[in-house]
Each structure stands twice: as C-alpha cells, then as structure tokens.
C-alpha cells in the first residue's frame, strides 16, 4: 500500500511482522520432522481451516456480511475436485484449479441473490444455500455417493507421503492467505471496510455497494473452494456432512474467537478450535457443550476475540510505559 518512504513506526511494525512470520514458518517447516503422522494430519487440517476462516473473514470482518453458509463453497470445491479426479479421471492440476473456479462461480451466482438482502436475511439465505447444497450432496447419489460420500479419492504420486501433503497444503495456504492479505490492504479492501462502517457514506463517495459485496462474496467463495480441494487432498475422502450448518458455525466461531477485526484473528481462531476440538473430543463426547459454553463466553466477554484482547493489553502496557517515560501518551492503535 504505502510506497516510497516508510515511517519509522511502520518500519518497526514490518520488522516485527517479518520476525513473527519467520518464527511461524520455521515452526511449520520443522514440524514434519519431529511430530507424529497424526499431528501432521491435524496440522494440515488446521492449515486449510485457516484458509477457510480467513476467507470467511473477508465477509464477516471486512465487509460486515455474516455468512452462515460458507462451508457450502468449501463443499462445492471439495466435491468438484473429488468428482473430477475420481469419476472423470481428470488431471490433478486441472481438478485442483477447477475446484476454486466452480466454487467461485457458485458463490457469484448465489451471492447475486444473497447480497440483495441485509443483516439477518442475508444470514438466512446463506444458511439456506448451505442447506440446499448439503441436501443435494446427500440425495444426488449418482454424482456424490450420497451419505456414504466419496472415499479413497486419488492424489498424484508426488502427494503420496503425509509429509508431502503437509508441505503442499502449507505452501498453498501461505500463498493464498498472502493474496488475501494484499487484497484487504488494497483500495478495494478499504472500500469493503467503508461499506461495513457506513454504507451510506460508501454510496455517497461513489461505491457500487452491491457489486463490491458480490466481488467479496465470490472471492471468499473461491478461497473456500481451494480449502475444499485441500480438504480432499488431506483426508482423501469427502462426505456431505462437511456442509452441515454446524460446520458453518464452527467457521464463524473461529472468526469470532480469533477476532474478526484483525486479519490474523481468524487464523489464530482456526488453529485454536482445531486443536481444542481434537483434545476435547478425545476425552469426552460432550464437545458441543464445551463449544457452546466457549461461544457464549467469547460473545459475552470478549466480542473482539483473542486478538482484540491482546491488542487492548498491549495498548495498555504501551500507555503505561510511555507514561513512565514522561512522554506524551498515545494509546496504541491496532494494526489491521
């Protein structure tokens, strides 16, 4: 975004971001050589959930559209990939890129109707879209295998080992998340933000709100399609249940828990939920109860999510430190 001269604070922020990024990358790179195969599988799952959650946040956090049917696009992408490779025996790369394209087109088509409605109604229709998609996958046995799904979807030889799958998913997710990061920091991302904060003002400065919303919706659907293809590559199977409404809610809670007003919030939320779900489900069958209490606590006590809380604590510490330095105290402004 910023060109030419970079202010000192922004430079230090960039340095810090680069440092955090390097640590995360190093951790991701070392993990396959120290962790168990199951941990690898779980981590791959966390990675494409990051992709799905961050793409959902393009809608929830940046545009203010609470989609309750985001898994529909993930599911469409996953089924596209599975059907193309298993039924049509298509080339891997063709199937891999067809998945997001089909999901994106589906999002474009459904988004055209969804964004005409506001707030609650938007949530409703997206939910209905997800339900219809689920029912289609469930009932259209000839195409999708119905309830028994499509087990044993083939992957190319270079993705045979779990380690290769992991690195492939990590690379794709990192690339796509970077793309989304650039999008949210582009003029278009700012337009989305403006529409969330003040639709009338956005209209006033000449933004075609509906069109921008459709673009955001399609982009998010496209990214979810990628996540769907990665899902199939990781689990080598696909079942209608990935498109249940509860899965959509899982995604939303990832976004809200991590913090929807921060780009990396949903990524943190996704990792937390994937690992928490794994730990709790191993101990008790009452995971829904735990998740329910978690949602209630997050919504009531920290609606800005983990990143919101961390930012507030950070801002407070900075304020205190600056006061001690006897300089003019300016509360830390959150980076977005």
């Amino acid at each position, binding site marked *: 975004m910023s060109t030419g001269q970079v202010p000192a604070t922004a430079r230090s922020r960039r340095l810090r971001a680069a440092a955090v990024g390097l640590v995360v990358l190093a951790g991701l790179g070392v993990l396959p050589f120290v962790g168990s195969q199951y941990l690898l599988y779980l981590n791959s799952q966390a990675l494409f959930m990051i992709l799905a959650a961050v793409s959902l946040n393009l809608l929830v956090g940046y545009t203010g559209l609470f989609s309750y049917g985001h898994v529909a696009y993930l599911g469409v992408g996953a089924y596209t990939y599975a059907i193309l490779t298993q039924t049509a025996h298509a080339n891997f790369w063709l199937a891999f890129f067809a998945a997001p394209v089909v999901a994106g087109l589906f999002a474009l088509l459904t988004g055209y109707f969804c964004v005409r409605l506001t707030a609650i109604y938007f949530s*409703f229709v997206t939910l209905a879209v997800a339900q219809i998609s689920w029912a289609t996958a469930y009932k259209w046995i000839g195409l999708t295998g119905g309830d028994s799904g499509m087990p044993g979807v083939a992957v190319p030889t270079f993705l045979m080992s779990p380690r290769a799958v992991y690195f492939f998913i990590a690379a794709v997710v990192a690339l796509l998340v970077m793309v989304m990061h650039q999008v949210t920091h582009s003029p278009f991302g700012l337009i989305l933000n403006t529409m969330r904060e003040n639709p009338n003002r956005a209209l006033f400065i000449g933004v075609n709100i509906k069109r921008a919303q459709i673009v955001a919706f399609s982009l998010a659907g496209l990214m979810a399609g990628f996540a769907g293809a990665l899902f199939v590559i990781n689990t080598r199977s696909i079942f209608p249940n990935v498109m249940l409404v509860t899965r959509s809610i899982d995604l939303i809670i990832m976004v809200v828990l991590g913090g929807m007003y921060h780009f990396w919030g949903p990524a943190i939320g996704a990792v937390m939920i994937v690992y928490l779900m794994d730990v709790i489900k191993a101990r008790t069958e009452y995971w829904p*109860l735990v*998740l329910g209490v978690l949602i*209630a606590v997050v919504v009531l006590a920290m*609606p800005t999510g983990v990143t919101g809380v961390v930012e507030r604590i950070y801002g407070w510490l900075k304020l205190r430190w600056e006061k001690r330095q006897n300089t003019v105290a300016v509360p830390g402004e959150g980076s977005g």
Partner: protein
Amino acid sequence: MSYAMSLFLIASGLSLILGVMGIVNFAHGSLYMVGAYLTWWVSTSLGASFWVGVLCSMVGVGVLGLLMQRFLISRLYGRSELQLLFTFAFVLIFGDLLKLLFGVLPKGVAYPVLFNGIVHFGGTRFPTYNLFLIVLGPIIAYLLHVGERRTRIGRVVRAAAANREMVGTLGIDVGRIFTVVFGLGALLAGLGGALASPTTSVQPGMDVPVILPAFVAVVVGGLGSFGGTFVACLIIGQVQVFGILYLPRLSESFVFILMALVLAFRPWGLSNKPLRTS
C-alpha cells in the same frame, strides 16, 4: 396438518421474538425440546397427568426464556449477528445437557386419555389427538392475533418494535417488555414441545427437524405477522407431504427452495407490505 400446527406453535414464538425484538433465536428449537422432555418427565417419572406436564412445560420453558433474555441476551442488544451466534451456543448447551440428564434413548409420551381414540374420516384413520391439534392451532393463532392487535399490551409491544427509543421516552420500560415478549415466545415453544411429545419420540436432536422449517415459516409468512406465519405453516406442511410423495429426491430442500424464492421475490413475506428496507 397436525405437523403444520405444531410447527405453527414454534414459528409463532419465533416470529414474536424476531418481529418485536429483532432477535433470531436459534435456541427456539431447543426450548421446544426442553418442553417435550419436561412433559415426558412430569407425566412419566412423576406420574402426573399429561395436562399437568403441558402446564409445567409452558411455565418452565417460559421462565427459562425470561432468564435467558434478562441476564444474557439483553446484553447483546443491537448486535444481531452476535446474538445469532449466541443463541446457537444455547442449542449446543441445551442439547448436551438434556443428553446428560436423560440419556440418548428415545422416550415416548402416551396420548392423553381424553384424546386417545381414532376417528374414521373419509376412509382413513385419524388419531383424535391430531384433530385436537388441528382445532387448537387456529385458536392460538386467533388469540395471538387479537392479543397483538386489540389489547393495550399488544399495542405497546408493537410500538416498542417500531421505535424502541420513542416508547422508552413515554415512560415505558422497554427492557421489561422485551423480557416478557421473549418469555411468551419461549412459553409458546414449550407448549409446542409439550403438545408434540405424544406424536413424536422425545430424543436428542428432535429440535433439528423443527427449527429450520419454523424459521422458513417465519420468513415466508412475514415478520411478526401471526396470520402470515399460520398460512406459511400450512403451506410448508403441504409442501413437505406432497414433496415427499412426488419428488422424494428433493424432500430435504423443498422448504429452503421455498424460502429462497420468497426472499428473492418478496423479501417482506407473504402477508406484510414492502415497508421495511433495512
């Protein structure tokens, strides 16, 4: 038809809460389920009559709704998306708590003695209890309609729905009104669950097949319109029955296709006028 009637009881409470307070209460199906479990528990384990069970369900679930609104949901006023998520948390919590308390085995509630018979009606056999439901549905719809349109409380509630600040300025405690409305909605859900308990098996997950069609009924019928909701429930009941009969492959999607069509072409519902835009 009887399915349409129990659907109506749930949908009317939902419509009330959504229309007046703008809260999308996902947990409504769970309240319905709590009502069914309460009736089962009172009429079986405690050995009381079915009607005592119904009464306990209405009161119990109503009070539960009051508490939920007063202490939790009222904190989230004006953040409808978070409310949606929050009520969904209750779906998970209630579902698991009932499972913890009563186990996963399906429970049966016997038909009340008064309506235990079977009527022959044009060659088909028909439980008297279903007839009772079919008669009761329109009565409740009418009572709600009159209560909303003709009584003082109904007027205040409608005013609060239209302009919360203005009603507050007139010296009326809007928060209390909302709490009462939510309680009434919950009470209707409890009643719905209680009355439905003899016709279905009381078990975990019984809320799922009810809550989504109920939402569709509210949206299709138009917000806050009991008449519209009533008609929508009848339509959905018929669509479900004939859909399963003629196009079984699509049976899961029918109601959603219906809702999508209505939202695409008449977003204000069947009965309302196109007034609200936001």
